């Protein structure tokens, strides 16, 4: 692997993490600094482990649940990933998955929808 290749991989992982964190916590991705601890943005333990699962899906790798406690910033965790795993397959394979999916479901105006909800609950 050449230096530029590994740099671009590192960057891809970093961008993925930035987008994922922004999605998870409803933040603007521009406000995320890769050297700040993830907890700075309010990431709790359940979301931290959830993010490891998403990362596994994307990279098609098995990763420790404690990844973001052991490497608590985007800079550190992406470095750890780049140094310890061969990411070329997943990343160069141009997986379309790298962009996080939109958050589900849209909140709907409360009153109207609720009777619908009750009807749906009782109709089962």
């Amino acid at each position, binding site marked *: 692997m050449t230096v530029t290749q590994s740099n671009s991989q590192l960057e891809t992982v970093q961008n993925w993490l930035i987008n994922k964190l922004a999605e998870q916590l409803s933040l603007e991705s521009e406000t995320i600094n890769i050297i700040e*601890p993830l907890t700075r*943005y309010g990431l*709790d333990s359940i979301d931290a482990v*959830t993010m490891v699962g998403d990362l596994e899906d994307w990279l098609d790798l098995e990763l420790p*649940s404690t990844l973001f406690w052991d490497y608590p910033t985007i800079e550190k965790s992406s470095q750890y990933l780049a140094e310890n795993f061969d990411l070329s397959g997943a990343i160069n394979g141009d997986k379309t998955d790298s962009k996080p999916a939109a958050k589900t479901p849209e909140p709907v105006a409360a009153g109207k929808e609720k009777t619908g*909800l009750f009807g749906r609950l009782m109709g089962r």
Partner: protein
Amino acid sequence: MLAPIQVNTLIDLLQLRAETQPHQHAYTFLIDGKKESAPLTYADLQRQAKAIAATLQESQVKGERALLLYPQGLEVVAAFCACLYAGVIAIPVPPPESGRLKRTLPRLRAIVKDAQASLVLTNGSILELVANVEAEFPEFAQMRWIDTEKIDLNLAEKWQNPQISQDTLAYLQYTSGSTATPKGVMLTHHNLIHHCRYLQRAGGYNEKSVTLTWMPYFHDYGLVEGIMVPLYNGHPCYLMSPFAFIKRPLQWLINITKYGISHSQAPNFAYDLCVRKIKDKQISDLDLSHWEAAGNAAEPINPRVMLEFADKFAPTGFQWTTFAPAYGLAEYTLLVSNKPKGTKPVFCAVKSASLEQDHVVIAAPDQEEGVKIIPSCGQLVCETEVAIVHPDTLTRCTDSEVGEVWVKDQSVAQGYWQRAEETDKTFRAYLKDTGEGPFLRTGDLGFLRENELYINGRIKDLIIVRGSNHYPQDLEWSVQNLDPALRSDYGAAFSVEIDEEERLVIVQEIERKAENLDTEKLIADIRQEIAEEHELQVYAIVLAKPGTILKTASGKIQRRAIQANFLAGKIDAHDDWCENIKQSLKYKNLEQQVENLEQQVKTGV
């Protein structure tokens, strides 16, 4: 139908299992949620329990307290049984983990002090982890640490029956109380056996039942229904780690498919996680048609999540009747109510305005607005008695009133470990007019209607997020320790309901004399501290001016009144932040200003 087992202690129970069905599969752990460990039979489990108990018995241990610090797995099941076999009171607690020591250790230390625990049962890797921080926690050094992985199983022969009775304490459950004043719920052998007998009936278990649980052993839902009910019934139990579930929610459902699971339980958030994380294309191989009871308790139930889950997993054969909403608390061993197997979940639509007055007025079927849908938590478990009581007058409510849920049964625990006053207040309540009692006061609000128990809010200052209980005092204290500008004793942590989910809000006063305030940094510091120390996401933070934090004459923080002011946008703030920017006070003020300007422009023209 399974028959109730006539035993007095858990020693008798496991002995019976080991004698009558020694080679039957008792427990299997799924490593990383996937790979099966060697199955543990009842004979194996008893041998391990006896060997560990014999090791404990090398010194005088009867009645001593022992912490259980383990990763989720078979070791902790054996260690729990071993405590009972030695007449030692077990304390199942969350194990310390590298990278999360900041949260786990202070609480552990407080529990050690409160319970005066002298023993720790654990494994090699946790021993090593704690050895690194030993200097900071001198009380750990005074305890006897036992690595149960290293115990010679031949020691089992040396075990001596401790001659206990059904009234002997079996374990302390520390899910109640703040870190500063943790409260250990005292449960006897009888509490546990009696309650398992109840759950056998109420949960609809039979000869073919198979359990899977990823709820942790230190959570009452995991320990009692997940781990002990299978032992009581004599049916197989599969365990997986909570991390394995959270990392890959699909794995829970794969295992339910693979092992033909009939009973598996989880809090509301877990069903939500499945809906959000599992992709439609991953569903095709799942078969959830044999899942009979999907227990849903430990935090408020969101009916919308139930619907989404049932819709999404309909192709797997998941039945609407499989959902088993339930309500319980550690002070009652586990469940007060649950939905009978095979029946449809029940809901009621109540007028929101009436609920605000603690009245239950059922809405017209076609009423579209101002309605709150409340899921029933099922019917009272077996002979459980419940009274709905005015928390102030201590008299019974009418059928159409919301009141505090009081419970009476042999499932009620013995009290809080060495807290006589709190035990009296919580466990020995009597109705003022009739003198009926003693009742356990749950601190939860609800009502009974057509034999269904509905829970709607609580009077205790408790925040429940994702099945974990958090005490406001702990959160407030963490915040105020961050910076001298954050005024001590003048903060309030409370929850608000956002999209039918409980979310945390922090309102904190700033010192009058504070200079050079960097409010943005303070807000980020608070978010980080709460995430690291309490593993919670904050929904909104308000840095408020003095006069915001209301107190009673005796100096108690009036969290409910502050919550009402927050919801009404009536707080004078230096700065604030909200996850949903449109809900922040800043944004609302700006909106107001724009509106005013528009008005001026209009009237000007």
